[in-house]
């Protein structure tokens, strides 16, 4: 089996890299694929918490690199889904504990076993970023509709291109339909215009994500979650299916149509 390594990155912090990694990993396994999530945020690990696997960690990525621990020993099996694994970061070390070369080896080993290797990149463009992209075949860039986030994403795309990564796709996260409609938020077209990368998906702002993240359950498990639905669609796209991107414009049309129907009925 020869899988692909996808790094999930954004430059800016707090835009949803870890949440996206957790959700896409889970959604891909729900589609029957084997996936492993690699947390490269050494010193500030979060992915284990978001997945609710924190209490199962025995060995981490630094142990694999330096301590003679086998990769298989450090992998944590997910508690809900068969075929989903996590390689946790170390919390007590620093980013420099792993080198890009070592990271590349880990990614190459993992993609022999898994269909998808999702690498959760830390914020910033320093060593942690360089490690995270070292073994990647493709990149997914997360941006939220704010000028500063788009600026950082642009910088990241530049660095990815310089590192020889040619397939870079964009997820626009936390978009608020009402604000876009009022013209108070950057719209999707403007963002794509500046970043000029392929759009992989749009995820709406959704309070259920915060709730599910705090509970250690990815939103994709919740069938009622709008963000979860968006992530499931993105996962299908990563899996090679053709799924149309729901931008908020056409979603509003459906919403209005439903409202109109109610209006008619109430007359």
């Amino acid at each position, binding site marked *: 089996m020869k899988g692909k390594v996808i790094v999930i990155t954004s430059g800016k912090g707090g835009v949803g890299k870890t949440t996206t990694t957790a959700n896409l990993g889970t959604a891909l396994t729900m589609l029957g694929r084997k996936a492993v999530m690699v947390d490269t945020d050494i010193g500030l690990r979060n992915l284990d918490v978001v997945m609710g696997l924190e209490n199962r960690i025995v060995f981490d990525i630094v142990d694999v690199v330096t301590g003679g621990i086998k990769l298989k020993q450090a992998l944590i099996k997910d508690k809900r889904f068969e075929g989903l694994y996590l390689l946790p970061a170390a919390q007590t070390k620093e980013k420099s504990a792993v080198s890009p070369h070592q990271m590349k080896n880990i990614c190459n080993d993992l993609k022999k076993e898994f269909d998808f290797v999702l690498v959760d990149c830390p914020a910033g463009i320093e060593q942690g970023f360089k490690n995270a992209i070292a073994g990647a075949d493709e990149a997914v860039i997360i941006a939220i509709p704010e000028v500063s986030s788009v*600026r*950082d994403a*642009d*910088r990241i*795309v*530049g*660095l990815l*291109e*310089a*590192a*020889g990564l040619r397939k870079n796709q964009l997820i626009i996260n936390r978009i608020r339909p009402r604000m876009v409609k009022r013209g108070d938020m950057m719209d999707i077209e403007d963002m794509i215009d*500046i970043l*000029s990368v392929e759009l992989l998906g749009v995820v709406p702002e959704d309070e259920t994500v915060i709730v599910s993240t705090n509970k250690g359950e990815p939103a994709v498990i919740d069938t009622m979650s709008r963000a979860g639905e968006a992530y499931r669609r993105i996962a299908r796209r990563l899996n090679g299916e053709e799924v149309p991107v729901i931008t908020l414009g056409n979603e509003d049309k459906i919403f209005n149509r439903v409202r109109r129907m109610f209006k008619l009925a109430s007359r």
Partner: protein
Amino acid sequence: MITEDVVIRESKGGIIICLDSQGSFLSLKEQILDKLDSLDELIGVQAFLDVGQRKLSRKESNEINNLLMERGLHLKKLVSRGKLVDFKKEAAAEKSKEPTSPSVSETNDSVAEDTILIKRTLRSGQKVFHPGNIVVLGDVNPGAEVVAGGNVLVMGTVRGLAHAGALGSEKAIVAAFRLNPTQLRIGKHITRPPEGEGKEGKEPEMASIKSGKVVIENFKV
């Protein structure tokens, strides 16, 4: 042990690309590309080519020159058998040797030496400096800088910083398909778009200095 045919070293003024005297030119070219891909932030960097014992034909050195230019590098000097050869002078000497056949590639070359072509979008954090003219086939995004001793021509949208005449020329211009810079500089003049006016230009525009002021006009031939 495998010896490498192409070695790239960093130096004060830029990078030095050393070629081995063995191996075919084609494989050398591929290796140069591979090596360049593994380095980042090369745009505007000056390159020195050390060919050692190898003798490059005019066509071959032109090919390498073009290849470097596509990546935004500027081939400055050619070093042969430890001797520094000025690329410009050599080209001129070659030209004078065979004045009867001024081939197309040579005429292109003389232009290309003061103008670099950047066939990509400049993104935030990327900076190009070149003493001559700069042509960008792409956008200049916010946070990116394009600084030229001569003119700046952008076949796309300028959203970042453009500086023409950076070495003091007041005659330099900045022209772009869409000109919406965060800051525009010509010579010693620094300008920024008026506050609050959110309107974006919908026509190609050109900035130049007229009676001591930076003026932006619609670009007309």
